[in-house]
């Protein structure tokens, strides 16, 4: 067989610690990235690129962010939507007030602002954990959205309260706003996705990632090996909120092309949480799989009856969607807490031995 792990000897720790230790894996990821950059814009339809890939990629960033906080550091957050909103509103504010600043600087800056806000709402984690913290993040969810809606400063006193995304260019191509080209938008978002996924992997295998996991697994023991709990938790909050902020900014600027509060309500928070649970807690790959799965499931449910010639009322579909999400969450938590990412791994292991049972 072409793909195997046996016989792939590593002769240095540096090789053993590489992100993808098997050459074929490495080539596969490079090929996938190359295809995403070159192949997709050439081949994919406008619908696929703008209505499917764009939102899935952006939500993957948010899922990565939440996975850092919940999957790696073990701190539950129900405020993902609010941190995304912070990114979106502040990206708008920065982009419209400092017009000379390139948009690829504006969006990480908005992410940094979201990170600062995330730290503020992570402070209670000094004394509490688990679901107590969930309430603090709910405070972020409701308070921040209220703030962004009620304070017109954030939207430059726009009368409708829902201003359109300002048009900005990178290398002469417009990447934000309604008039931007599909390919340009897609590639712009993809650049962020690749960079942030790579950074997430690096963080997970470095000291900081290990200290997050140590806090998650046993916070008292973590303190006794010399990890300071509060800075560690706050760093997870900050980095998680940074990712969410970037996702929110991209969502507003590139996907829905306007800054509106309803895009970031509590349902968004739950949606991202589901992505993380279904995709796999503590897995970078899982964040992508989960985002794709949770985003595509409703689309599938809506169109599936049509393929078989049935028509089902849309609110019935919504109800079924809710039930299905509920069942999926419970199923994955019970059967495979490491989610789709782990299933993928198991499938690989099984395939390697196929057709022999072991």
């Amino acid at each position, binding site marked *: 067989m072409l793909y195997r792990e046996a016989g792939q000897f590593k002769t240095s720790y540096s090789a053993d610690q590489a992100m993808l230790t098997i050459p074929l894996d490495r080539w596969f990821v490079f090929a996938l990235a190359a295809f995403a950059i070159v192949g997709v814009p050439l081949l994919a339809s406008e619908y696929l690129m703008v209505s499917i890939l764009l939102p899935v990629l952006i939500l993957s960033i948010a899922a990565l962010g939440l996975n850092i906080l919940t999957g790696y550091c073990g701190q539950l957050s129900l405020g993902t939507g609010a941190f995304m909103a912070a990114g979106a509103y502040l990206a708008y504010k920065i982009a419209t007030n400092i017009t000379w600043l390139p948009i690829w600087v504006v969006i990480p800056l908005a992410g940094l602002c979201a990170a600062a806000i995330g730290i503020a709402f992570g402070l209670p984690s000094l004394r509490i954990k688990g679901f107590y913290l969930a309430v603090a993040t709910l405070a972020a969810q409701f308070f921040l959205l209220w703030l962004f809606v009620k304070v017109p400063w954030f939207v430059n006193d726009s009368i409708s309260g829902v201003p359109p995304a300002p048009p900005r260019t990178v290398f002469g191509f417009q990447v934000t706003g309604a008039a931007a080209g599909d390919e340009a938008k897609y590639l712009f978002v993809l650049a962020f996705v690749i960079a942030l996924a790579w950074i997430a992997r690096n963080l997970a295998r470095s000291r900081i990632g290990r200290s997050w996991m140590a806090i998650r697994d046993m916070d008292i023991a973590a303190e006794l090996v010399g990890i300071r709990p509060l800075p560690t938790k706050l760093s997870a909050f900050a980095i998680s909120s940074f990712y969410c902020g970037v996702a929110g900014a991209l969502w507003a600027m590139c996907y829905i092309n306007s800054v509106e509060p309803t895009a970031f309500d509590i349902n968004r928070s739950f949606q991202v949480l589901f992505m993380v649970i279904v995709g796999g807690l503590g897995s970078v790959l899982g964040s992508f799989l989960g985002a794709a799965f949770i985003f595509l499931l409703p689309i599938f449910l809506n169109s599936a009856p049509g393929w078989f010639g049935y028509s089902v009322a849309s609110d019935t579909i919504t109800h079924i969607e809710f039930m299905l999400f*509920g069942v999926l969450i419970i199923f994955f938590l019970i059967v495979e807490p490491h989610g789709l990412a782990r299933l993928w791994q198991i499938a690989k292991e099984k395939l390697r031995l196929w057709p022999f049972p072991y």
Partner: protein
Amino acid sequence: METLYLIFIDPFVQMVVEPAFLVEVLIGGLTSGVMYSLVALGFVLIFKASGIFNFAQGIFVLFAALNFVGLMDLGVHPILAFVITIGIMTALAFVVDRLVLRPLVNQDPIILFMATIGIAFFLEGFGETLWGGDVRPVRVGIPDEALFWEAGFGEILVQSADLFAGVIAAFLVTTLALFFHFTPVGRALRAVADDHQAALSVGIPLNNIWVIVWAVAGFVALAAGIMWGAKLGVQFALSTIALKALPVLILGGFTSIPGAIIGGLIVGAGEKVFENYWGVPLLEGATEDWFAYIVAMIFLFFRPQGLFGEKIIERV
């Protein structure tokens, strides 16, 4: 300067000048507070007995009310509908226990918490599929008329249904407190809450105890659902309102039944007073959305165990 006056002085002047309005605001707040309390009560019951933070309690309220109203709309007598709904909630408790809690026993609390979010979503979809998503009024013959109370400083308007809700809540709380302290089942529940394994080893059947406690929580949910439905109609907005039971719990302490009640009343009254005296004049209103959560967050900083909770001691 003027802002400072508006923040620190004016609201209190208003309260003194127009005490009747203050009392009305307080009563309005306390009555919604009773609702929060009733939802929070269900949370506390389950948390005390199983250490599980049941996010779905809010949906339980809705689901119970939906079943009750749905049955009544089918022409079932209210009392029979009540009994059937209790049966449904018990069955639900059984299913939740067998399909969700049992397989997740000994998992991290955070995992169980997320599982209850799953339960919440499932029930929301399930309830709507069964009974539809319309707002349904509850007509169980709770008298709802305006009563005027002549106080020394003016006339105050009270809804009789609100008073009724208060009485029901007080009754429920007393019963539950007695149940927990003086019945064998109540003692068993407290033992289980303390230490599962120890409880098992002295012969408490863990199998049924969780079903019982979830069923009791279902019963509390039904009571809350009927009260709430009588006030607002049974609708899905209830489930968002029910989320406010979470900050109530932070305030009252997760393990305290009186804490849940008092926490609910404080939150209910507090948010109405804040909205009327600070929110509307200074902050363009809608502060009720977040007031409870921000108060809870402040509590988390200074007194994480809440007003009545037990102090958390950690050991190596």
